[in-house]
């Protein structure tokens, strides 16, 4: 049963025009951060979202929680369409959907004590009947994320980055949500702390039966965390599949390039490994390339790629892929009709 389902989500951010452009009536241009994506996350599953910076992963994560309103498309949560939900109902629902932010330095209000920061969620959703009961819950949660309960009266600037990220995790999970978006939650931490927190997230996921949307550009962590992985490029999915699909037999040229860029611990393997670095930069999302968005950088580019956008279709081994190399027939048919 799917807990979260996104259908045809688009998010276009208008580009600010100068006064001259407004007067000359230049047409409004948009940054197409997310351009028509659909996916679902089953209850208990961890869905990984990978891609370069600017591919729209973070925007997608915000849209799922309706922290950003989508330009188009529908969001379903727990079988309910929440796209047009009023702000009061949406607030109640936020208990069930939480987010862990990327930058633990910026995610905590510098003027709020740690305890109050965590308690605010409990206050909003009326969890725990008395203040002392809430305090007890918070101390338990602090201990669960391996922090001392006496951090309760400290301010964020007194803590280290790793400690703060544990606080951010505690603040999100104390509400006992069903669904958590982890937006590059481990990206800003150093390696030893990162592996500890990854372990912690895996444990908590099991304990609390959480469903995760795990956004990352660090492919190695998805290996330990994710059941399914979606690869995004310029606001669209190029490939969605299980860990085996993506890692062991990537099909899309972009996925292949990403996987080949993962560093290997063994230098011998590293030397023998062929690196497929795509040529050039990520194109401008204001004017994405025609046809397949990856075609200017793709080593296998064909004529059809330049004009026809490949649809995301199911391949024989049950993954979803958007590439003419594998869907040539259907694409040619589209062109004919």
């Amino acid at each position, binding site marked *: 049963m799917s807990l979260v389902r996104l259908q045809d989500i688009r998010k276009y951010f208008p580009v600010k025009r100068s006064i001259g452009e407004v007067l000359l009536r230049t047409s409004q241009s948009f940054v197409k951060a997310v351009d028509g994506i659909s996916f679902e996350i089953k209850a208990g599953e961890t869905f990984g979202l990978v891609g370069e910076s600017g591919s729209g992963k973070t925007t997608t994560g915000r849209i799922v929680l309706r922290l950003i309103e989508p330009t188009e498309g529908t969001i379903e949560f727990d079988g309910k369409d929440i796209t047009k939900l009023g702000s009061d109902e949406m607030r109640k629902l*936020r208990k069930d959907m939480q987010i862990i932010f990327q930058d633990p330095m910026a995610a905590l209000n510098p003027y709020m004590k740690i305890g109050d920061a965590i308690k605010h969620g409990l206050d909003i959703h009326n969890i725990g009947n008395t203040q002392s009961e809430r305090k007890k819950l918070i101390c338990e949660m602090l201990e669960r994320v391996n922090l001392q309960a006496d951090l309760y009266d400290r301010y964020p600037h007194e803590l280290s980055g790793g400690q703060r990220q544990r606080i951010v995790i505690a603040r999100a999970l104390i509400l006992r949500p069903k669904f958590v978006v982890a937006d590059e939650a481990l990206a800003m931490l150093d390696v030893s702390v990162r592996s500890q927190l990854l372990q912690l997230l895996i444990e908590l996921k099991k304990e609390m039966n959480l469903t995760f949307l795990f956004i990352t550009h660090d492919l190695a962590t998805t290996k330990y965390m994710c059941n399914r992985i979606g690869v995004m490029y310029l606001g669209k999915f190029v490939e969605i599949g299980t860990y085996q699909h993506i890692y062991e037999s990537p099909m899309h040229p972009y996925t292949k390039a990403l996987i080949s860029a993962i560093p290997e611990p063994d230098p011998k393997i590293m030397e023998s490994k062929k690196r497929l670095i795509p040529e050039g930069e990520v194109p401008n999302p204001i004017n994405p390339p025609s046809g397949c968005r990856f075609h200017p950088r793709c080593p296998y580019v064909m004529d059809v790629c330049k004009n026809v956008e490949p649809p995301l279709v199911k391949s024989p081994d049950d993954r979803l892929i958007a590439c003419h190399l594998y869907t040539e027939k259907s694409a040619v048919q589209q062109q004919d009709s």
Partner: protein
Amino acid sequence: MARDKKFVSERIGDFARDLFGSGTGRLTLIGSFILIFYVILAVFAPYIAPYDPIERVGLSLEPPSKDFWFGTDNLGRDILSRVIYGSRIALSISFLGVAVAFIIGVPLGLISGYVGGWLDRVLTLIMDAMYVFPGLILAIAVAAVLGPGIVNISISIAVVYTPTYFRVIRNQVAAVKDEMYVEAARALGAKRWEIILKYIFPNVLPSVVVVLSMNLADALMTEAGLSFLGLGIAPPTPDWGFDLNSGQRFVLSRAWWGIVFPGLAIVFAALGFSIFSEGINELLNPTIRERR
């Protein structure tokens, strides 16, 4: 834990060292002494002043002497006593005026900056229109409509300074509202007013405190200007600006004391506020502090 057990006196000591430790810090100390001096004058005026400020106690225009340190004015009133009592009006009007400006300007700035959209545009337009008026002229216009009295003068001063608070707060809010901790609060399900009060307000407050202390000096001058022009407190209540006005009529008869002493009182009060606010500014604004 040991580090939590800090004595209160030690904490005050640390704070004082922060405030007064550096070179400009000592200036802050001087500023705060001047401020405290004026506050004491205002509060204990009846005990400090040698005479009743509105009674005739000597001859007209007596020069400074042993009996009348600052001399007497044209009605034979003791100028020293009038200067001491005058600090009451000066301080209470400037504090009240700035407080009203703060109470109106800050919430409007918070709402305008957070909500944005057309409300923000309309409020910004109104405030900018008020801001471009020269301060004293706007105050004169408002005071002329409202008439004399402590509250009315305070309101006309507040009108001048409200846009300052509004602008500072609004721009700060516009910057802070995109911070991740504000988004985190929204993700928790916090209501708008909770986000404004608990997450945004504490983060923009330091910049206002600076404006607050700077405005006090300005407000004091505006008050003196208004009462100099006869738009202040009704006589015979002692008031520096008014005394300045009545003193300047007798400068030609060589009665310099009638204008010098109230004038000095205004200058020192404004100086004290300015020096103090400069120090506060540096304390709360680390980028300036590091430059020295």
